[in-house]
């Protein structure tokens, strides 16, 4: 991991990877969503509204994966003092927050025709809303710390502590059996029919690749701003 500690070496890899991840992600998203909208059959219980799954599930996955990225980068920063870890953690925050908000909004739009309500204080929905608030807190804390010239250690501790919410989100459908449906996809299999599953997997991989590209773009932007600041300081001194 320390092989990428040198920003110049990181940028040599990140530059081509940003475009590759972005374009391949966009193609897979289009394929997955077209499959979900026009090829996959409607559900026997939820009818056409099940098609919201193809945008809702990837958004939920990326909302959680974004915080997983913040926690992993924070651990790298606090334990191994990796010089790019704080930059990576901050780069995960806004994309993770956006996809968490998309997950909540699309879930609400799915809930109205399926359950008859836009919102319920159900375990899964409430823990996802908590995740959105954690993101907002992290973004504010990290920005304030960076503005003061700090190393971002407080934000890193917050990023690690906030990861407690990830297993709560995951197991919420087992611990509190209220409105949200249980787990449909696990590591060993899925209860979703193959004809409905493939567009979901293609869309999820596509959104994940594009998410990776967006994180790299945000890391490259922060590294460039750091170079500008360092040069201006040298010029002033």
């Amino acid at each position, binding site marked *: 991991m320390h092989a990428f500690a040198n920003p110049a070496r990181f940028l040599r890899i990140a530059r081509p990877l940003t475009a590759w991840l*972005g374009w391949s992600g966009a193609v897979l*998203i289009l394929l997955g*969503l077209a499959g979900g*909208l026009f090829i996959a059959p409607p559900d026997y219980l939820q*009818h*056409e*509204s099940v*098609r*919201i799954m193809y*945008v*809702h599930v990837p*958004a939920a996955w990326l909302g959680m994966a974004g915080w997983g990225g913040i926690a992993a980068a924070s651990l790298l920063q606090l334990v191994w003092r990796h010089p790019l870890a704080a930059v990576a953690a901050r780069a995960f925050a*806004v*994309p993770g927050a*956006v*996809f968490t*908000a*998309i997950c909540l*909004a*699309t879930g609400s*739009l*799915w809930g*109205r*025709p399926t359950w008859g309500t836009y919102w319920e204080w159900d375990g899964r929905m409430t823990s996802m809303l908590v995740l959105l608030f954690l993101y907002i807190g992290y973004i504010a804390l990290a920005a304030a710390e960076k503005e003061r010239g700090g190393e971002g250690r407080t934000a890193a501790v917050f990023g690690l502590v906030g990861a407690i919410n990830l297993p709560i989100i995951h197991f919420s459908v087992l611990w509190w059996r209220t409105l949200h449906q249980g787990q449909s996809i696990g590591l060993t299999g899925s209860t979703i029919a193959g004809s409905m599953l493939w567009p979901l997997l293609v869309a999820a991989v596509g*959104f994940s690749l*594009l998410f990776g*590209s*967006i994180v790299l*773009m*945000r890391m*490259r*932007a*922060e590294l*460039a*701003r750091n*170079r*500008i600041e360092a*040069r*201006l300081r040298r*010029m002033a001194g």
Partner: protein
Amino acid sequence: MSHWSFIAAAYALTLLGTIGLAGLSFLAMRRAETDAEALRRDW
């Protein structure tokens, strides 16, 4: 409202959010890298 109204709203929101996020991140990256390169050349 039919199911398709909810489906259209969900897809529009997701695509707008994703394209907006990717576009703004790309523009911020390009601006910062162009400024850094210009400063390096001029100084």
